[in-house]
């Protein structure tokens, strides 16, 4: 068996080892590779919060994710939240995924201290409720009734001043929706039942190609693509954070995968030639 053919049968554990090295080394010693801003995905998202949102707007965030995709989506959530707070806007968070609300609450409480945001005044995490899409649809009529008038910790909306503005999930009360989407239920809920609301999506990378048609059709106004999108947003708000730090590792891992793909395919071709001979 030639060396090229060995590449076709490379042990999966060796691939994991190479991949781990490609990821760990740049995390410990960043290279500082350049990051460009995507003009079709990230830039419209930033421009909306930066300039097009009316002052003191109320924005709904939907934390539709669990612990797994949090690595991609929480840096997006943090960057958007910092930007919204800096511009003087308010945020209400709900979640189509039960764990999303709890994860978002923990994350936002940490970030709120950095930006001076006050719970109940600048942001509220209303939470998740059982009922799927019909439950989300009910928020259109009466946000308080749909949420049973309590936040994720069971605190009454009466004791949270911001919630006086959030009576219904309509354009009269909310200026737009940002969903951090990792699967189903997710984006489809909003484009189907809330077409009149401006929708922006923080997406896991795997879903981005599938949502491009909605972006082209104007059903989605802007989109952050995985950790890369978060890194771009961190640069736009001039607050490089976790996503920017991890981009070198991501790029190195992609380079490693491309090399392994090429080697594996060369091995495949060489084996075919030998068989033919």
């Amino acid at each position: 068996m030639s060396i090229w053919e060995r590449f076709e049968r490379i042990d999966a554990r060796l691939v994991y080892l190479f991949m781990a090295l490609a990821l760990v080394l740049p995390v410990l010693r960043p290279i500082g590779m350049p990051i460009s801003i995507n003009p079709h995905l990230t830039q419209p998202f930033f421009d909306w919060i930066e300039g097009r949102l009316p002052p003191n707007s109320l924005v709904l965030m939907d934390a539709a994710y669990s612990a797994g995709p949090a690595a991609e989506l929480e840096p997006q959530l943090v960057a958007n939240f910092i930007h919204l707070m800096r511009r003087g806007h308010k945020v209400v968070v709900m979640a189509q995924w039960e764990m999303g609300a709890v994860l978002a609450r923990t994350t936002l409480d940490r970030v709120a201290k950095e930006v001076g945001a006050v719970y109940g005044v600048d942001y509220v995490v209303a939470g998740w409720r059982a009922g799927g899409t019909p439950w989300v649809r009910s928020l259109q009529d009466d946000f308080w009734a749909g949420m049973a008038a309590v936040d994720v910790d069971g605190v009454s909306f009466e004791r949270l001043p911001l919630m006086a503005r959030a009576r219904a999930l309509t354009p009269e009360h909310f200026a737009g929706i940002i969903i951090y989407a990792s699967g189903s239920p997710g984006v489809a809920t909003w484009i189907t039942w809330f077409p009149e609301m401006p929708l922006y999506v923080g997406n896991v990378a795997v879903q981005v190609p599938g949502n491009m048609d909605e972006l082209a059709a104007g059903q989605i106004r802007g989109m952050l693509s995985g950790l890369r999108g978060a890194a771009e947003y961190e640069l736009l708000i001039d607050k490089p954070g976790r996503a920017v730090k991890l981009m070198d590792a991501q790029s190195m891992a992609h380079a490693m995968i491309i090399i392994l793909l090429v080697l594996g395919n060369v091995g495949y071709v060489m084996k075919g030639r030998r068989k033919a001979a």
Partner: protein
Amino acid sequence: MNISGDPQVWVIAIGTLMIYSYLWKENAAYRLMEHMLLGLGIAFSAVLTWDTLIIPRVRTNIIAQGHWMFVVFGLLGLLLYTRMLSPKWSWLSRYPVAVSVGYGVGFSMAMSPRPWLLQVRDSFRDLWVVRDGVFRAQATFDEWVFFIALITTVMYFFFTVPHRVTAVRVGSRIGRYAIMVAFGAAFGNTVAGRISLFLGRLQFLLHDWLGFII
């Protein structure tokens, strides 16, 4: 290096390593963690539903506001459990299922076509792009690529005319390449996403647990 002394961080770190041990081979540590995760997930949902849905609904909607229809539909929902109680009464569970299915179908049919029709409308593109009185070659090229990919992909799934006809055969072959490009983009993004997930764990292990400065 400044290793964390927080027991919670240690539990998370050990749990992460137990799950990743599967990369080497199937083992008892991985299976133990998998079962724990399943149990914790179910318990988490149950507690969250009880605390933030059932209790507030009873206290606010039923007792304070007097919306007694919640009780009626609550009892209807409880009929689902008759399947577990006894075969004699299990037929009662069909009623909440019937209501759910009926509502679900109607709910979906009410609005679902709209998003797709908007996308169909968006597919009617201008194939000769002129903006501000200037011909845009790049945009025109993009629209033609979109148009050809759309038509040929539809052709690939068009079975009324046999694919022996030359125009359909050539068109569907181009469509197959268009589909392959889409699959490639999806796969590339999947890889990027999976690496991001691993990077999240890696950052936790190196920074939060082992205390490396990142």
